[in-house]
């Protein structure tokens, strides 16, 4: 070895020494590298790796599916369905080649448009135009809103550059008949009005999220970390609505509004025993399938409009008078042509043909003057309390968006004429639902129950949670209720004010109302509200229905406009719900009397005319 180290050639170093030097250098360099690797992979790894994961990690929200709104029979009124928007990368679509007769031909936009149109049913020239318009771009919408099945068929065509984006669309299978009631959710996912807004929180659910690592091309790294919080779907809401009845009601109201050239119309069907709203239709409505809506068309006048109840109030006044023993059914009245009270001379729509009418006659013929004559005998507070007890001017407990409470002025604020007008339904305002409540109370044996729109909800586990029923609150005795019914049965009879409201085979009780309509825009009375509210069968009421036609231009009387709608809806509802026709006949209630007939229970020679209620001037306070 020693000899090997000696250089064999002058000026040259032995390769062995050079090699040892190089090996030494290599070891030093690799040691430095090893140290750097320990630093990168060991000591600094945690923070660098965290930054790396942070850059790869993406979080995607999983939308929670919105709850379904069902009717009472489980028919879906609003449900969320998955839809697709077809998108295109025109640059890629242009390269679309097809095998035609064994030869590969580049068919480009035209070929792609034709093939896609054949599946989706769109206009091929329209699609081609869309592609041409975005020529040179990398993205465009090609066709919006197709079903997932259609998209699968389009995808199977294997056209390059055709993609889709999923979205959830709110579908309203029953369309316009339900629209103002159910409300609307647009593409933004925000609820607008109706039950959708009323139960927004319940229906929405809790969106979840998925977190995963993404590769350079946007693909999910399958071996990477991923986690997901599942979305909690929204709860389903079950309404008390009967969708068949709702559709029928809507159809009838719409026909009448068009026939009468009216501004709008609405009708409510209720079960008087439970307060369940079985139908609540209003017209005009809107098409929930449109993806644009105005706030004007979305509002539901049935719950939002307030107007003077008119003759409906006479039922309250009559009920109070009967309950307070001021009158009985046969109390005789003598109606004047004019009744001066509080500086005003009140009159009826027609001067009475026969001034000698009983209390029953006053109510049945809807005499304003007769109503004042017994109503003014009620103390202010008593009248006010009865109005309140029947549900007028009460807080809107239903929770329907925009629902109004109406306004019943407190006696402290009454003007000279307030009390008189309020006995026959002017000077106070209420929604149709509140007016329906008056008749519901009478139909339900004198017990008022709060209206109910929602039967219950399905909670997270799918368990049905029932909305509690209102136990009700007695307002008048059952005897008073029966007596009122016997009078109201006269209204839809051949001799009454609303013969068109009669339902053949069933005993019907009801009341027309033709109230002057206060126009908030014009700030004056303009047009009328033609209404009819009634219930059937009168001997055991199953249904109570209210119909109102706002500002008709052809005809104005509640009996002739609202009456026929009431009759048709009532007949349909009674028959479809299997209510047996009435077997009894209405009790005879005398509406008029002979003023010369002897008054029973009085001394001899005293006639009914003598004891009759007459206009004796403004009563002493």
């Amino acid at each position, binding site marked *: 070895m020693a000899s090997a180290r000696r*250089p064999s*050639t*002058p*000026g*040259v*170093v*032995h*390769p*062995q*020494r*050079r*090699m*040892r030097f*190089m*090996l030494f250098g*290599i*070891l030093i*360099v*690799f040691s*430095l*590298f*090893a140290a*750097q*690797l*320990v630093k*990168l*992979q*060991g000591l*600094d*790894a*945690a923070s*660098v*790796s965290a*930054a*790396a*994961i942070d*850059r*790869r990690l993406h979080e995607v929200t999983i939308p929670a599916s919105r709850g379904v709104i069902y009717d009472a029979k489980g028919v879906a009124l609003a449900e969320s369905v998955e839809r697709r928007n077809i998108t295109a990368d025109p640059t890629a679509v242009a390269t679309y080649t097809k095998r035609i007769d064994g030869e590969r031909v580049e068919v480009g936009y035209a070929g792609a448009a034709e093939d896609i149109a054949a599946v989706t049913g769109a206009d091929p020239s329209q699609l081609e135009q869309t592609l041409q318009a975005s020529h040179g771009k990398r993205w465009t919408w090609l066709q919006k809103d197709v079903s997932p099945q259609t998209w699968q068929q389009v995808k199977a065509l294997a056209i390059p550059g055709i993609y889709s984006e999923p979205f959830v669309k709110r579908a309203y299978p029953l369309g316009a008949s339900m629209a103002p009631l159910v409300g609307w959710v647009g593409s933004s996912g925000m609820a607008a009005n109706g039950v959708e807004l009323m139960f927004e929180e319940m229906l929405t659910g809790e969106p979840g999220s998925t977190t995963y*690592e993404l*590769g*350079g*091309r946007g*693909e999910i*790294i399958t*071996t*990477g970390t991923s986690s997901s919080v599942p979305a909690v779907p929204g709860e389903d809401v079950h309404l008390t609505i009967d969708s068949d009845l709702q559709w029928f009601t809507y159809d009838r109201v719409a026909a009448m509004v068009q026939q009468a050239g009216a501004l709008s119309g609405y009708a409510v069907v209720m079960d008087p025993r439970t307060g369940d709203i079985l139908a609540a239709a209003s017209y005009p409505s809107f098409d929930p399938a449109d993806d644009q809506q105005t706030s004007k068309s979305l509002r539901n006048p049935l719950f939002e409009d307030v107007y003077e109840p008119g003759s409906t109030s006479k039922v309250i006044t009559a009920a109070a008078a009967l309950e307070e023993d001021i009158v009985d059914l046969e109390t005789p009245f003598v109606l004047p042509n004019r009744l001066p009270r509080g500086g005003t001379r009140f009159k009826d729509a027609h001067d009475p043909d026969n001034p000698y009418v009983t209390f029953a006659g006053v109510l049945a013929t809807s005499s304003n003057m007769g109503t004042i004559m017994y109503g003014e005998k009620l103390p202010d507070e008593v009248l006010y309390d009865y109005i309140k007890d029947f549900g007028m001017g009460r807080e809107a407990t239903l929770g329907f968006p925009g629902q109004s409470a109406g306004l019943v002025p407190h006696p402290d604020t009454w003007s000279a004429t307030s009390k008189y007008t309020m006995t026959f339904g002017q000077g106070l305002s209420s929604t149709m639902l509140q007016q329906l409540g008056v008749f519901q109370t009478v139909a339900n044996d004198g017990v008022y129950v709060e209206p109910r729109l929602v039967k219950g909800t399905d909670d997270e586990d799918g368990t049905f949670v029932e909305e509690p029923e209102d136990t009700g609150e007695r307002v008048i005795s059952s005897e008073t209720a029966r007596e009122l019914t016997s009078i109201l049965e006269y209204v839809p009879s051949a001799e009454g004010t609303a013969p068109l409201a009669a339902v053949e085979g069933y005993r019907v009780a009801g009341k027309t109302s033709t109230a002057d309509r206060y126009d908030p825009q014009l700030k004056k009375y303009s047009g009328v509200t033609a209404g009819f509210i009634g219930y059937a069968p009168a001997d055991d009421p199953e249904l109570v229905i209210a119909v109102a036609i706002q500002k008709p231009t052809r005809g104005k009387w509640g009996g002739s406009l609202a009456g026929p709608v009431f009759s048709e809806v009532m007949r349909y509802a009674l028959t479809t719900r299997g209510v047996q026709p009435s077997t009894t006949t209405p009790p005879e209630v005398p509406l008029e009397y002979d003023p010369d007939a002897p008054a029973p229970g009085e001394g001899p020679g005293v006639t009914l005319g003598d004891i009759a209620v007459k206009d004796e001037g403004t009563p002493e306070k």
Partner: protein
Amino acid sequence: MTTWPVRREEGGRESVVAGIGERLKSPVAPYYLLLGATTLLVSIGLVMVLSASSVSSYQKDGSSYTVFLNQLMFASMGIVLCYVASRVPIKAWKWLAPWGMLLAIGLQALVFSPLGTDFQGNRNWIRVLGFSIQPSEFGKVALVVFGAAVLTRKRRVLGRISHVLVPFVIPGAAVLIGLVLAGHDLGTVLILVAITGGMMFGAGVQARYFVVVAALAAAGAGYMAVGSANRMERIQAWIGDICVNPDVQGCFQKVHAEYALADGGWWGLGLGGSREKWGLLPEPHNDFILAIIGEELGLPGTLTVMLLFVVIAYACYRIVVTSKDFFVRIAACGIMVWLVAQAMLNIGSVIGMLPIIGVPLPLVSSGGSALVAALIGMGILLALARSLPGASAALRGRPSLLRRTLAVVPAPRLRRR
């Protein structure tokens, strides 16, 4: 069952370290070290090329195996050529040297013929029979053999610089390097320069020449770097401490390599578990395969790869030390400089200690020409190792390969008993 070589010391104690030392002194030690290191590197390479290319290969061709099967085919070809090269006698290599050099220069010139193709801005490839061949890889083999042969012939006059330079450097190496430089493949130029310089250094040429050349090279490199925005950017990324995230200009690859290594951490994410190979780290199965090795196999993986190159360097050192033949010494030195310098440039780039130069990791990275050329280089090293005094005798004394293989199968007779 351990098979550690154990030596009984005088006191009767057994020493494992001493046993290994004994084995390393054996004349066949370089041969087996090289064989083992090559086998391991090629195996690790194949497995990691499959893993690292699986995602991009699937995205490109619909199959995760396209790149791997291609690499497997070249590995098979390379192993055959490696075996052949290891059996070619030293004399034959000496005789082949000038012709090999001429062939290499001719092939490299073909790059500028219509057969040549561009790849990523480098004109470095020729297409023959449907294969893309990178002639410069084979040029490395030719340069080593040519240099060793020429310097051996000149060994008596190596004290005079003119004899050192002509004809090895001028025209041999200079023409080859010039052609590669014309194709803009700077990585290969660096390796060829390293081989040329390394062989002269190994041959014992006086150190002062290297000092002068190194000074000139540094000045030249500095001049070229300042003159090019792209090169300045790479140097900034290397030592400028500007790479806080991959979005900084010029830092994308460097930072993603750091991410990959950091993801792997001490023990790795497990084979196949790389995240950065999902279209994030560029060239995951080529120049940056070490980052993926680090990500999947952790620190043991990267250190093993480096250790195997150290083993090759050590084996080459042993050949030089043991051999009496000047050609064998210089050739071993040349091949060592080639493989180790290339490994250093590659690893240094990946771990951020060198600017990103763009050379593959020898024997590991995907790339047919590079793998076949490196295996031929290993074949030559094996031939050199076989030529060591006492080695061929020891190797001949072994039972045949067939007998050795069958020895692990239990004899049927024994089973019958």
